[in-house]
């Protein structure tokens, strides 16, 4: 009982911490100043979202959510690679 209560408190705290981290990353995404900063912030936000989904799986007791986390991780990696290619092509053109 006691262990479960501690776990519930920890769960709430972890959700808040990840939420604050998402907020901080979003501030960097909005402020820039360069395009690379925004891509870095977006990449971090995707990773934080994976952590958040893992926490949802933990809180709901539904392990199926982990599949969504894995898929998001794959897509986020591809997105970052695509952004990096785009940035590098832009650097070549200039």
């Amino acid at each position, binding site marked *: 009982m006691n*262990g*479960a209560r*501690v*776990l519930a408190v*920890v*769960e709430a*705290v*972890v959700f808040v*911490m*990840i939420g*604050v*981290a*998402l*907020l*901080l*990353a979003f*501030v*960097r995404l909005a402020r820039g100043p*360069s*395009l*690379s*900063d925004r*891509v*870095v*912030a977006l*990449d*971090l936000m995707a*990773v*934080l979202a*994976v*952590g958040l989904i*893992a*926490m949802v*799986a*933990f809180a709901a007791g539904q*392990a199926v959510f*982990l*599949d969504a*986390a*894995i898929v998001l*991780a*794959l897509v986020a*990696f591809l997105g*970052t*690679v695509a*952004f*990096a*290619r785009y*940035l*590098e092509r*832009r*650097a*070549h053109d*200039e």
Partner: protein
Amino acid sequence: MSDLVVAVLLVIGASFLLLAGVGVLRMPDVFSRMQAATKASTLGVGCILVAVAVHFNDLGVTVRALAASVFFLLTAPVSAHLLGRASYFLGVPLWEGTVIDELRSRYDLRTHRLESSFAATVPSPVTGADALVDGHGAAPDDQRRHDPEGVE
């Protein structure tokens, strides 16, 4: 007992994720922001996934959680490298407190040619970077001269 392990792992993971967020907001230039975001977030998500695996105590869940964290360990350096490379070519300014930029004096951004690939044949003014290259001994230097790696 397993509850305690889960709680500790969750707190450690969330702390690292929060640290990544603070780092991305507070670090002075893209490259330092990138190192904060990449390393701290990889460790944070890894810890949280391991905590979930311990909590569920099920083979399928454990395999999936470990697969996800191994995937992060493999891809985070790759994406950080690509982003850093693209940012450097794009000319994103470095922090004014940067001590040394070893690449700038020896990398031609126009032709993408790395000078140190023929450093052994062309004598250049001695800098800290040159001393570092010499420190590796003659053998790697010889290899580098014949290696077309520096030419893209």
